[in-house]
């Protein structure tokens, strides 16, 4: 996708663990492509112990680290991506209901979705428009006790 005025690439971005990219910021990237030849991520098993926590980046001799640890490489799956996509969708609803600083617990995203859907159905809610979304949040807040066990307070609250 390109900016028609000056041919700058338009990059659709989604929220990450640390938020959205910041204009004016420089980012190192690893972007997989459909049909590409590079794996999007290679998981190392077992992980290699590394005692020094670094801020920013440091150069390393990764070949040496891997050679001395006799690691194997775990194949990738789509399960993690599916979990991530679901979380992006329902995390916003959790925030609408409980406020900022609340996160759906790991492993509870699907249960959160199903519980919220049941509550809304039982209340006769119908989707459509901003007013409808606000109404949904209000209904869910009235049944907050049914969702409370599925969320947790995060360190950012």
């Amino acid at each position: 996708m390109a900016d028609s005025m000056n041919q700058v690439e338009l990059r659709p971005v989604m929220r990450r663990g640390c938020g959205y990219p910041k204009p004016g910021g420089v980012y190192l990237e690893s972007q997989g492509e459909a049909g590409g030849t590079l794996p999007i991520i290679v998981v190392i098993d077992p992980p290699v112990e590394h005692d020094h926590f670094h801020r920013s980046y440091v150069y390393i001799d990764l070949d040496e680290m891997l050679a001395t640890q006799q690691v194997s490489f775990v194949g990738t799956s789509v399960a993690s991506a599916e979990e991530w996509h679901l979380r992006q969708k329902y995390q916003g609803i959790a925030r609408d209901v409980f406020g900022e600083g609340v996160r759906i617990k790991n492993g509870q995203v699907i249960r959160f979705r199903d519980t919220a859907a049941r509550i809304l159905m039982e209340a006769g809610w119908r989707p459509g428009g901003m007013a409808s979304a606000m109404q949904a949040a209000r209904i869910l807040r009235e049944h907050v006790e049914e969702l409370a066990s599925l969320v947790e307070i995060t360190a950012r609250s």
Partner: protein
Amino acid sequence: MNDPSTTPNPVPNQAGAKDILIFRGAEYWPTPEDVIREVHAQGLSVRIPRNNIPSGLVKGLSRIALGHIKAVMVIENGTEDDSSASHRGEPAEPSEQALRAAFEELTQVEGHDPAIDEILARQYEHAPSRWLEMPESEAKREIFERLGVSFKPGIFAYCYYSGATYYLKPDETGAPEDLAKKGVHAVRGVIADTGELLQPDGEQTTAESEDA
């Protein structure tokens, strides 16, 4: 802070390119599996200081190793089987099986947290994350204490470097000259869900990842 520019003679990898290591912070990615999920969904993106762009990185050849403060799990206390093995002169290797067995026991308790069943059944690429993601409870603390479970910093994955990107400010039409000379690619970020342009200090920008 470990200044990468002071690292003596970074060694090129087998492909002749340099590799780097970055850590993902536990505040934003509570477990390594959280990082893996995000990378699967939308690739890796790591903010770096714009005045300290690494040299020697080659697209498709350099690797970005991913570290996390809880990447490595240590189980200090062996199981009974492990002890028996030790008595037989075989290596006693504390097993993750003991950890699974302990949490499976919890699922037999009436009224237990259903998240335990779900996490036991889920697929993990970073195996220790399963135990990190178990819901916090007195029972979890007891299991970790009994088996001597702890976590250490480590490298759990790597990605292949595919380029450096500069996100334009709304009034810019190209990357600053110094960055363009270094091959940094300029893009204009838009929120995928809404089509809004990224704002420098807008509501959607929640945190710096430079130090994460």
